[in-house]
């Protein structure tokens, strides 16, 4: 059994087990299953350790060097090959660790399931929860587009039920909105899936029916021959013949140029997940209605799939699309930053504020990717990881206070730090990390993205104004977070909250790892994130730039 398969399907196995154990033991089984997944995923670390000296042996010399690869034929036919193809590189690896960690912590956050308002069907809850984890992990490791799509869709149904059954008052509306939005994105992806396969096949046929693979070699060192269309995401990105055909002017899809239109189809699918304005409206609803652990998963992992999709599919496979739409994408990114921050400022619902802050933060990811500079890509990736730690923490902090107060009205709170000092301390770390205070994780990602955007000024004249506007977003972020802290945690102690117990041992246990990571990522960005991601990101960007330069 190889490591990645084990990591992906361990949660699902635990989920099945949950269906058969006595009711009182279900949560124990679920926590153990997610803990086991976390521990097994940590075994991936040795592969990526070694620092800058070993970068070449870990990440290769061009995009496409993979670790822990497994490929088995799944559905094959004449000129048709769908594979069970898993592998990780600097893109997938950090997100796997993030997923297993956030899943474990949010599984712990579900420990008090019995005290929830809707506490029926504990077996179903943990089964769906763990099935969701399998789906998320599958997305980050599958490198066959078909398989990727399957895992992408597998997440939908569990998430729908988790929000719809165990959610708040408007749960049905929120759940169906989430489902419809995401499916709308994925059907566009499905069109791209079919089109990429046939256009790739046409490219190979035009080149004589057999071309050397862009990255795969046989045991003797000769490149593998590719004789038909492929779903292999790395092959699509690295094969010169396919790349030339995809970006050629004469390659049309329904009368439109192939690369930009396919890029757009994929982009919309991922932008819905990210979410960026104007596809973001499902997110506040889903977050507000979802139970706390599910909000943590949503913010911590699901949103990252959008960014991962850009970096794995859109840019490597359709670099020309990235160039073509750069201005639009950067604009959408900046609008998301500013609009999300302004919306967050206007909220009086604690959870909705954090939800809109996610929209704003993910705008940096989109901006960083859109400008296509090394710092931009690195910053976007860092921002995803950082947000993946700070925003589940914020959602959990909201959950802790909601469990006690049973409301989330910001204006009705006040002076909580005096009542609950431990909780107040944790909350300050979490929200300051989200704010982007230097020394905490949010800062590095934002600054890197801004630097990357300034860098892009040499190729795009619009990059400077974009960077300035995005930098203004930082001020807005500081505005709404500081205002939030003042209204909720500072001020005089209020009578109605005087009796609240401070954070329990379990809550502290969940908050501390995230608080430590917030600080660690802020202080040691190289050692905690960049060393694992930059190798792949730089090679990826080099490939993208080469293709663009060759075409222009």
């Amino acid at each position, binding site marked *: 059994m190889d490591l990645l398969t084990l990591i992906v399907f361990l949660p699902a196995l635990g989920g099945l087990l949950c269906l058969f154990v006595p009711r009182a033991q279900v949560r124990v089984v679920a926590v153990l299953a997610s803990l086991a997944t976390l521990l097994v995923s940590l075994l991936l670390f040795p592969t990526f350790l070694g620092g800058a000296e070993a970068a070449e042996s870990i990440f290769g010399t061009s995009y496409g060097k993979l670790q822990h690869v497994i490929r088995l034929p799944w*559905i*094959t036919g004449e000129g048709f090959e769908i594979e069970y193809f898993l592998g990780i590189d600097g893109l997938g690896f950090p997100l796997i660790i993030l997923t297993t960690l956030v899943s474990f912590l949010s599984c712990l956050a579900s420990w008090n399931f019995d005290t929830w308002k809707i506490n029926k069907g504990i077996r179903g809850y943990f089964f769906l929860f763990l099935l969701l984890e399998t789906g998320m992990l599958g997305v980050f490791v599958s490198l066959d587009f078909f398989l990727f799509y399957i895992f992408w*869709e*597998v997440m939908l149904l569990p998430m729908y039920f988790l929000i719809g*059954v165990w959610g708040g008052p408007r749960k049905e509306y929120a759940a169906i909105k989430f489902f*419809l939005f995401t499916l709308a994105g994925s059907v566009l992806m*499905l069109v791209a899936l079919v*089109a990429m396969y*046939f256009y790739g096949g046409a490219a190979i046929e035009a080149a004589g029916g057999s071309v050397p693979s862009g990255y795969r070699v046989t045991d003797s060192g000769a490149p593998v021959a590719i004789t038909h269309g492929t779903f292999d995401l790395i092959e699509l990105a690295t094969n010169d013949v396919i790349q030339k055909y995809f970006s050629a002017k004469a390659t049309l899809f329904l009368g439109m140029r192939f690369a930009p239109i396919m890029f757009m189809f994929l982009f919309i699918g991922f932008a819905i997940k990210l979410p960026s304005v104007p596809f973001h409206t499902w997110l506040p609803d889903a977050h507000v209605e979802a139970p706390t652990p599910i909000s943590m998963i949503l913010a911590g992992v699901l949103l990252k799939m959008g960014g991962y999709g850009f970096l794995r599919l859109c840019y490597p496979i359709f670099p020309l699309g990235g160039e073509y739409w750069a201005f639009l994408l950067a604009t959408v990114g900046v609008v998301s930053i500013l609009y999300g921050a302004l919306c967050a400022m206007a909220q009086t619902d604690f959870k909705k504020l954090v939800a809109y802050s996610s929209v704003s933060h993910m705008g940096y990811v989109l901006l960083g990717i859109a400008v296509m500079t090394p710092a931009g890509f690195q910053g976007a990736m860092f921002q995803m990881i950082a947000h993946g730690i700070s925003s589940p923490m914020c959602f959990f902090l909201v959950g802790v206070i909601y469990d006690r107060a049973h409301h989330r009205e910001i204006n009705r709170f006040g002076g909580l730090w005096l009542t609950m000092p431990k909780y107040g301390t944790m909350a300050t770390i979490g929200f300051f990390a989200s704010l982007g205070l230097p020394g905490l994780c949010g800062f590095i990602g934002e600054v890197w993205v801004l630097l990357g955007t300034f860098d892009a000024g040499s190729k795009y004249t619009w990059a400077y104004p974009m960077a300035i506007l995005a930098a203004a977003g930082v001020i807005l972020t500081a505005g709404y977070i500081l205002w939030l802290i003042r209204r909720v945690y500072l001020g005089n102690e209020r009578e109605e909250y005087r009796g609240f117990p401070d954070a329990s041992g379990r809550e502290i246990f969940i908050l501390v790892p995230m608080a430590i990571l917030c600080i660690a990522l802020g202080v040691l960005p190289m050692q905690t994130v960049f060393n694992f991601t930059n190798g792949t990101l730089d090679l990826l960007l080099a490939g993208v730039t080469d293709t663009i330069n060759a075409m222009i």
Partner: protein
Amino acid sequence: MSFLAQTDPWAGIDVGEQLFAFSPMIALICTMLAVVTCPLLFGRGPRPIAIVVAVGVIVTFYLAMRVAGVVSTGAISGLSPGGAGGMLIADPLSAGFQIILMVFLAGIFWLWWMGSAATERNAPEFFILLLGSALGMALMVSTLNLLLIVVAIETASLPSYAIVGFDKRDKAGAEAALKYMVFGSVSAAVMLYGISLLYGLVGSLNVADLAQYVATMGFHTGESSVLLSVGLLAFFAGIAFKVSAVPFHFWCPDAFEGAKVEVTTWLSVASKAAGLILLARVALTFCAAVEAPLNMQFLEPVAWVIGIVAAVTCTIGNFSAYKQESVKRLLAYSSIAHAGYMMMAAAVFVYAGSPGYTAGLTALLVYIIIYMFMNLGAFGITALVVWDGGSDKLDAFNGLMRRAPWLAIPMIICLMSLVGLPPFAGFIGKWWILVALGGLDSTLGWFLVIAAVANTLISLYFYLRIVVRMVFAEDQRAAVRAPVGGIALVNLCALALLLLFVFAQPLKTSAEQLSRGMYQAVASNTSDSSSARVADSGS
């Protein structure tokens, strides 16, 4: 009259072989006769009838398997002395369809035994009609003779009208049957009129001759073109009625709502599948006859017409399902939409034009098999809920997750499979259709791909309406009492949907074999008329 001149019309024909090739249909007829005789010997109770039917279905299934094994090396066209264009065809496709039909019939029989057997007083009549329509459908996929096509469609339709209104005291059923019959008779008359025009024009009832005529004359030459177009259009209208393609779909929701659930399930899959395979056969015969250079110019408009009808059928079916309160009616509209998806595959093989092009037919067969499980499951659960609560309204499903989890979970699987969501087999069915469409690499193909995925999105909402009722709605009613056998049946269907997703490969391979070995009809004036056995036509 030409064969009268010959001394021995059966010369060169192995009668034994031919009888064997058509033995599944003969077994079906024998079963019907046995069902007629049974009451005289053992009384009218459901038990003896059920035994006879079960044995008959198993024997037919066995014979169809045997035939499929034999004809996989070549197709047989026969039971018509002295002509290459035989009346009946036995090839892997027809044998394969008979196998599918028998599996499905077994499922319907199981459902009937669970729900209706105890109260059914007219079991012999019910089964004669059901088996009769099965025979008609088996015939529909085994012929390329215009006359026999009409006979087959009528054989399938007439018993269907009767079983839709089988319960005399049920007003809704009677109304449904009448509507169904009026629509059916009109479209049959239109079809017959079209066929008479075509016969007058071509002078032959063989579709291959007709295709040959079209290929040589084309639509644009001669004053006969109007006659030809009208004739063909009327002919296809008859098929479109069976498939319930827009605008011939109005009978479908009424008939499905009024009929018993077993009957609705039967019609929703079997009659559409037979119609689509007949369409496939006819279309591919045309493609084979049309010479390559003329190919696109002539067939492209036809493909566009079929494609647009398919896309419209899909969209109208899905949008009409939105407002339905009766689950049976909702599923009826969903079956219209699914007929649309399957017709998209039909557009593929017309457009592709080459007889060796099997992707479309393979996709169609895979879809039919998967669709059979989805509908058997969804209708089966509806039946169990209706038998318990007496209502098929959405309210009857309220809180099903708590009242009967073993019905709610397979229902969710079946519905999500109908949407086409992985990891359920419905996605695989849609996937092969998308692949076949994408493989065309043409505007039509990509237009239909987009239409298909857009419809997936549209359909999600109304399928979710049932899910919402089952999972989210509060309901204090008691648990659903359902027979264990019924629960087993629907859960088997759900399991099949999961397994057919994981093991998509074998399903596709066998469907490919069926479509590859399909009999290619040849026009009588170009072929060697002494040989009734046609060599392997697969490529």
